């Protein structure tokens, strides 16, 4: 689709074409294409240094792109920065609220800078404190706030002007699970009201829960993109790890576990030498452990795995299940590393 056509169609959304940013010889971001229609949620997923923050900084006019173009709410970020800033709300990675002001004074100041009148600013600050559960602490200095409260205040500051497009850089990093859930609910509420949301995260489950579309960034380039469902199909579900002490039964265990894997080539095994005692008693015996890592078939219960191992007469040292992590995503996208493959062939019959 032609660039102008896309811009027109996504009037209150976000578009980017070949967006790139170079610092010296290093490309922090390169070739980013985005197409976020109004009212949708885009999750930028990646490790530290993947280019997420750079992308957010360009889209929020804090940084100028070295190449490519981008529009936010129909305005070019490079040429019409001032227009863009009128339409957006931003919460950066570090909670950039003023520690030496009270929470209320912080919000009133931001509201005044959005050119609300004094009365409007006071009213808006009160509303937001209420809404973000900070009303009781409104007149406390922000430097006395906990990390979670600071972050909520930072978020409140980004809501002040009821922005069309909201940019949040790792909004839940450092939050406890309860605050995280509350924040997610708050963001869903904004999105229901029609706000377009672009957020970055290191957590797959966060992107999964909030985003309509996910772009996976790796070393500044797009490693994968799609809806959460599409990505999960490629990546698979939870990971099951079976550790066995006796390497000679590795092949047998592999066969016994095969039915629980998700799709083909899902069983990966590796040999790890760990100073672990299989009996769990503190005796200083060192044993090598064989680990079989596999993607769990949807709906798999861990107890089925344990029963199958029992039936095959395999004495498992440890059976565990964990949620898919960003590392699994990268592994699934880029394929298992060479060393991992060779380790896998050792136990495959």
């Amino acid at each position, binding site marked *: 689709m032609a660039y102008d056509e896309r811009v027109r169609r996504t009037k209150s959304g976000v578009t980017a074409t070949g967006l790139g940013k170079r610092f010296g010889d290093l490309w922090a971001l390169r070739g980013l294409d985005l197409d976020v229609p109004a009212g949708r949620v885009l999750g930028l997923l990646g490790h530290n240094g993947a280019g997420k923050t750079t992308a957010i900084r360009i889209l929020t006019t804090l*940084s100028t792109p070295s190449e490519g173009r981008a529009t936010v709410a129909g305005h070019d970020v490079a040429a019409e920065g001032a227009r863009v800033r009128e339409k957006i709300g931003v919460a950066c990675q*570090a909670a950039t609220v003023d520690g030496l002001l009270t929470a209320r004074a912080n919000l009133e100041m931001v509201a005044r800078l959005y*050119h609300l009148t004094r009365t409007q600013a006071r009213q808006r600050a009160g509303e937001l404190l209420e809404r973000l559960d900070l009303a009781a602490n409104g007149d406390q200095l922000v430097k006395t706030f906990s990390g979670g409260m600071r972050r909520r205040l930072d978020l409140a500051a980004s809501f002040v002007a009821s922005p069309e497009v909201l940019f949040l850089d790792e909004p839940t990093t450092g939050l406890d699970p309860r605050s995280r859930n509350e924040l997610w609910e708050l963001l869903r509420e904004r999105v229901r009201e029609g706000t377009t949301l672009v957020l970055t995260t290191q957590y797959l489950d966060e992107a999964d829960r909030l985003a309509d579309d996910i772009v996976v960034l790796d070393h500044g380039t797009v490693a994968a993109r799609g809806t959460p469902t599409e990505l999960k199909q490629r990546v698979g579900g939870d990971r099951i790890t079976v550790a066995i002490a006796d390497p000679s039964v590795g092949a047998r265990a592999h066969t016994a576990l095969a039915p629980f894997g998700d799709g083909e080539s899902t069983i990966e095994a590796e040999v790890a030498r760990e100073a672990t005692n299989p009996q769990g008693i503190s005796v200083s015996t060192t044993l090598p452990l064989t680990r079989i890592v596999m993607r769990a078939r949807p709906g798999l219960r861990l107890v089925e795995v344990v029963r199958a191992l029992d039936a095959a007469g395999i004495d498992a040292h440890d059976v565990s299940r964990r949620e898919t992590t960003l590392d699994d995503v990268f592994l699934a996208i880029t394929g298992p590393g060479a060393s991992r493959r060779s380790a896998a062939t050792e136990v495959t019959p």
Partner: protein
Amino acid sequence: MSARYLLADSLVFARRHAAHIRQIPEKLLDVTLQPIMFTLLFAFVFGGVIAIPDGSYREYLLGGVMIQSLSFGIMGPATAIATDVREGVVDRFRSLPVSRASYLIGHILAELGATLIGVTVLSASGLVIGWGIYSSVLGGLAGYGLIILFAFSMVWLGTWLGLIVRSPDAAQGIVFLVVFPATFLANTFVPLAGLSPVLRTIAAWNPVSTLAAAVRELFGNPTALPPDPPWPLQHAVLCAVGWSLLLLFISAPLAIRAFRKRTQD
């Protein structure tokens, strides 16, 4: 839209600074308590041993302490802006629909205000120990005019320093390292006549001496100049204005450039 709101936005930022000072009054110590301490220490400890040929030491002292205090006024703006830049508060402001200049204007206004509070406190404590303006109303106004001009140039210099250092602490270190010797190797506390020939030459050409001499001259206080003072001390007021303008014209563009550089990538 930016131009219309420039002044209003600048005042919002200036008020933010004022709120900081209300929260942490210690921020004003370097421009209030410290000069008072110097005044009292020198007036009572050295006052008895330092002879001023054309008047009292206490009257002589105040012009020196005033210039020293204004020179230390570099510290406030330097640490304030270095802290803001480091903590990312500036980024938050930059993502708002306000002109970047308004942040800088607000900062300069607030810091100048803080310095002027210091000037007021120092003048009051001077009056208590026996200093006064003995020239004329016009002389007094001219004296304070020069003080404000110099304070303005120091605020810009401090702002520039705060923008080029890595941390607020570094700014403090540099200020101590430069301002302390610069304000002592001058006629700030002792008349030039008491110094050894080499030091006397350095002190005579030190801009701090020129500024202190100019303030004393304008307020009608004793200047304790040697019989044949070097050229800048003979034309102290003219040179003091020149030095202040020179510093201002160098540091303001540098500060603006550094601010652009620090806030644009």
